[in-house]
């Protein structure tokens, strides 16, 4: 969403592997959340112009606590929570040579002395291909998309000096794909409302947490996600009070109470199709084994046909 105001300079993971000489993990802990990220794509990978792998790269971690990822970093900046925006703001100023009012080398920004940030800013400018990978630590701290917006601006501005990019460390397998499909079909990546028969977009108004919190939904169809596990308790309680359908391969925290549970073959195991990697590279996932259930595509198509029949009957006045 942040990119809707400032955009984002980015690259595919192969460019990280082949070219990046400076890697910054910000609020991201791939050692635990994206376990092969470091070896396949980033810090430890060996690429075309990075034959030495980890040795040839500088690795910086910015996080609120030590993590397995930070243990392997050249520089670990342990910051106080909720200060990402301030840090990115100061980095922008340092990178662009904008004076900072009333700060000395020892002044703390996000719990870290300014001198350290000055060092990082220099490191960024002197790198020849820098990449910052940001995770939920950044996107879910105070300020949310403002943090990413400020970081994206910093990344843009660094391109005056060198190549510098940002990559969002997307969690779920194809959450990026759902943004992509919604965008090409509706024009908007998420939070799309069709009440009037055309797409209308407004996160905060039509995003799931907000809508359920305000009880603005009277039925829910949940596909390949477990709100029972991910969403706040009051929202799950409300979901339980309205008709809810779950299309889901496995038992989870939603299936016990959903009004309709339709099991499906899991994508990439029992069903084929397209997934979008965190860097927008699309991949075809295979069907490896047979499941006793249809794919979710088939189930959704059947529901669509039923609904469409009813709607057409309604239109025909029957």
């Amino acid at each position: 969403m942040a990119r809707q105001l400032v955009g984002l300079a980015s690259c595919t993971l192969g460019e990280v592997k082949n070219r990046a000489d400076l890697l910054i993990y910000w609020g991201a802990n791939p050692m635990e959340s994206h376990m092969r990220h470091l070896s396949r794509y980033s810090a430890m990978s060996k690429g075309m112009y990075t034959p030495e792998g980890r040795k040839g790269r500088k690795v910086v971690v910015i996080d609120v606590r030590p993590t397995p990822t930070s243990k392997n970093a050249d520089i670990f900046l342990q910051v106080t929570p909720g200060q990402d925006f301030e840090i990115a703001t100061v980095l922008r100023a340092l990178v662009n040579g904008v004076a900072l009012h009333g700060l000395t080398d020892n002044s703390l920004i996000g719990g870290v002395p300014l001198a350290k940030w000055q060092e990082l800013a220099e490191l960024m400018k002197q790198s020849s291909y820098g990449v910052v990978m940001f995770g939920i630590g950044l996107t879910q701290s105070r300020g949310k998309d403002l943090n990413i917006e400020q970081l994206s601006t910093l990344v843009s501005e660094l391109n005056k000096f060198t190549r510098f990019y940002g990559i969002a460390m997307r969690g779920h397998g194809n959450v990026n794909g759902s943004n992509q499909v919604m965008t090409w079909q509706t024009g908007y990546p998420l939070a799309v409302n069709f009440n009037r028969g055309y797409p209308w977009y407004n996160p905060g108004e039509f995003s799931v947490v907000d809508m359920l919190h305000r009880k603005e939904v009277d039925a829910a169809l949940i596909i390949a996600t477990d709100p029972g596990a991910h969403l706040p308790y009051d929202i799950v309680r409300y979901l339980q009070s309205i008709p809810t359908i779950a299309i889901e391969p496995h038992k989870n925290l939603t299936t016990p109470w959903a009004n309709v549970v339709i099991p499906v073959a899991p994508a990439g195991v029992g069903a084929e199709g397209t997934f979008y990697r965190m860097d927008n590279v699309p991949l075809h996932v295979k069907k490896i084994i047979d499941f006793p259930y249809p794919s979710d595509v088939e189930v959704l198509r059947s529901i669509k046909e039923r609904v469409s029949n009813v709607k057409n009957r309604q239109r025909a006045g029957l």
Partner: protein
Amino acid sequence: MCKQITLILKTEPSLPVEAENITPDNLSSMDATEINNLLLWYGNEQRKLSEFFTVEISEVEEVDEFEEGTPLCHTRIIIKGDLIRFKRLGEGMSSGELLIEGSVGFHTGALMKGGTLIVRGNAGDWLGAQMEGGKIIVQGSAGHFIGSGYRGNPQGMRGGMILINGDAGQMVGSRMRRGVIAINGNCGDAPGYRMLAGTLLIGGVPGIRVGANMKRGTIILLKPGELLLPTFYYNCTYRCPVWGLLYRELKDQGFNLQCSNKDIYFKRYSGDGNEGGKGEILTCHSH
């Protein structure tokens, strides 16, 4: 003669109602039947206004309080009831008066071009978003993104005035380009975020990141909260000549500022340095 249309809410609907059709411009030439039959969006259905409201129409004789003797000729809509589930009331209105005797939902007065919108209760998010002119007065508090721009739009409010007697949510006046927003109470984080120009006055205590990434424009803080971002630079403590103008303008509009006009010193900060530093934050130093 002034046409006065009173809408009285029957019962609170359980889902949101999108009511951008209720503007003085729209209703001015309608009779009672037409108003009753006006369609509002209720979820994915359109329903008649009469399902939600009873309608009364009357003619009132009135004169302009500022220009004595000049008869007023406009449409006034009065809506009574708790309208929290009603969105987009007065959206795009360009004339007349819309008086809401209760609280309202999202997008109230968004894209407004003229006229006056008064909310006696609280207002939801996106109040006056991308408004171009006119005046919005909220006697209670209002939500996030007041006078802001919708996602992706580089500009928020482009003119007019928003006066909030109570508190405001986050990002009030984000990307505003012109106009005045005044909040008597406290406000959430990042007021004046990416502000392009215009004036934002906050009477109470603001959240953090005041004026972050502002290019130009003025933010006045009568009760400065936490430290400003380090990309704001202190200049001086002085009497700001503009203050008197603004104070008077707000007073003329019936806005009760919790401070006096006289003998106010302001600390003047320039910023955001990352965006060229042409904006200013004035923080009240003494009364």
